[in-house]
């Protein structure tokens, strides 16, 4: 078991390093870091001094090592566009995105699993087919259109919910949350739904497919041949086996959600990391882009580790027990 955990950790570190390499390459080779940090009037001497200070004249591996150690200390450089430390920007905006991502994943999981199970059990029911058809539309509707549609309906026409921003936020240390105020909660509803709808659709279709697959297996056939009631078969046998692939994929999705938040944050003018990233792309603000990349990779890696652990806890076959002789 220890071997399993160590292996997962080792892989995690490898991925982070690989992404760091990519981020660093971007940093170093795209555009000119020096030119971006000084004005146009800077003299050649000033530029050289800056280059020396930034360590740009050292060999590549040393620069990379410095880069990695800097990041480990929380140093992400300075934003080209805003002139502020990137680490500050990250800290300010991360809570907005994390809160949004977390809540929408929760929403997607709960409803996705429930609807998926329902659709699998009542295969030929009208409601199930309706849900599947709607899910297909969900996959075809770009997230930003859903967002716009919601804003038009709920903010402009019905005036129930605010059309942009986070509302009033409460600060807890360096974190800020919108869950503790009414306007904060109202502001959360549409973005969470918008971001979560696509995931929910995916999860629902996955759960349904996996459950149908499970219901076709030999052990289900054998359970039926033993007279086990259909209800127990659906929930005790099929569902439990479905959960493994679902948890894996849902877990991987969470990392993706952070990235999908880019669109939602743009539509709702949500002050999070995604909106920050888009601005960075538009202005070729490499340090911010690189830092965002590392952040997403970090979330991915952590979630992957968590999924591995859950896998381990749920599937007895992974616990490496020996097969008895004969």
């Amino acid at each position, binding site marked *: 078991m220890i071997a399993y955990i160590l292996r997962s950790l080792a892989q995690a570190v490898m991925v982070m390093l690989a992404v760091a390499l990519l981020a660093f390459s971007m940093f170093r080779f795209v555009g000119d870091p020096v030119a971006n940090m000084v004005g146009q009037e800077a003299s050649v001497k000033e530029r050289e001094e800056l280059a020396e200070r930034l360590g740009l004249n050292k060999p590549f591996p040393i620069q990379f090592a410095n880069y990695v150690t800097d990041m480990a200390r929380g140093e992400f450089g300075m934003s080209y566009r805003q002139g502020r430390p990137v680490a500050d920007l990250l800290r300010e905006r991360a809570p907005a995105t994390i809160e949004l991502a977390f809540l929408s994943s929760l929403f997607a999981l709960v409803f996705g699993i429930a609807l998926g199970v329902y659709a699998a059990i009542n295969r030929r029911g009208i409601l199930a087919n309706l849900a599947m058809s709607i899910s297909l539309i969900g996959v075809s509707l770009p997230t930003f259109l859903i967002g716009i549609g919601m804003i038009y309906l709920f903010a402009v026409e019905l005036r129930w919910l605010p059309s942009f921003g986070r509302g009033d936020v409460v600060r807890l240390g360096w974190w800020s949350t919108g869950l503790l105020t009414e306007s904060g909660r109202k502001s959360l509803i549409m973005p969470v739904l918008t971001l979560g709808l696509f995931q929910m659709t995916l999860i629902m279709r996955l759960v349904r497919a996996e459950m149908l697959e499970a219901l076709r297996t030999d052990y289900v056939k054998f359970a039926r041949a033993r007279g086990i009631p259909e209800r127990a078969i659906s929930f005790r046998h099929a569902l439990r086996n479905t959960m493994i692939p679902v948890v894996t994929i849902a877990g991987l999705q969470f990392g993706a959600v952070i990235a999908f938040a880019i669109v939602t944050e743009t539509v709702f003018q949500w002050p999070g990391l995604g909106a920050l990233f888009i601005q960075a792309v538009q202005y070729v603000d490499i340090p911010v882009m690189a830092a965002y990349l590392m952040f997403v990779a970090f979330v991915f890696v952590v979630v992957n580790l968590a999924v591995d652990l859950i896998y381990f806890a749920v599937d*007895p076959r992974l616990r490496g027990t020996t097969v*008895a002789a004969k």
Partner: protein
Amino acid sequence: MTSPVLSVRNLKVEFPTRRGVLTAINDISFDIGPGEVLGVVGESGAGKSITGTAVIGLIEPPGRIASGEVLLKGERIDNLPAEAMRKIRGKRIGMVFQDPLTSLNPLYRVGEQLIETITTHTNLSSADARKKALSLLIEVGIPAPETRIDNYPHQFSGGMRQRVVLALALAAEPELVIADEPTTALDVSVQAQIITLLKRLCSQHGAAVMLITHDMGVIAETADRVAVMYAGRIAEIGPVRDVIKAPLHPYTKGLMGSIPSITGESDRLVQIPGSMPRLTAIPTGCAFHPRCPRAFVPCNTFRPELQGEQRSQVACWLYHPYPVNAEAAV
């Protein structure tokens, strides 16, 4: 025979496909007496497995029992509502499938699956059910059952798993056990053990057995009577010794001739030319006639029925008076 445990009468199973209706089993009838082992033998696609599945009521829609009856101890079970049929499964009819690895749910311990079956069909408390599970494991020959009962399926070897499967099938003391290729997925060395175990358990519990297999050796060892199936119909049925030593139907003769034997003349192995027809293209008359070395006048027009004395029956015009068709040209 004394009143049979299982009685199948003119059973017909169909599968509607978009290219027409497929008849997987066409009008078969047989009985199984109490404590008797009936072997059902035939090539792949002959309809043996579907017969077993039909008896226990697990034909998946759109497949269905089109006509005929299945009677368990004299009561019809093929037309029961779903819930009533579910109660019969496991309790009165048990079934064992081919692959023990996939028959067990890998996420649950063996004991949990046993207890689940026991509590579904009896009113035992969990503690009593666990005791019963332990005794079942001892019966099927699992060593150290107190520890093994809490193991997962992947911790058992193939032969051990099939023993667990047998324990599960017999847990509620059924009157009939259907074994669908129970040894095919096992090592040869283990096959004999499992078959002997099956036979012993069933005679101890007083259960009749329908043993479905394509392996004549297993039948010879274990069965009392054997039914030979071909293209969804029964070609011949009778006591094992008779059918093996003196087969009547040309198909059975071909099957026996294709089994190598240590004793006996060392002629070439007989091979039946051609192959079994697909269910979408079953020949008219006797389904075997295109491959039959002794086909004659009536064989391509009229379908022979199973006829004969009570224990031995054969469906072949060689043994019964055949109808004459005045228009048939030779």
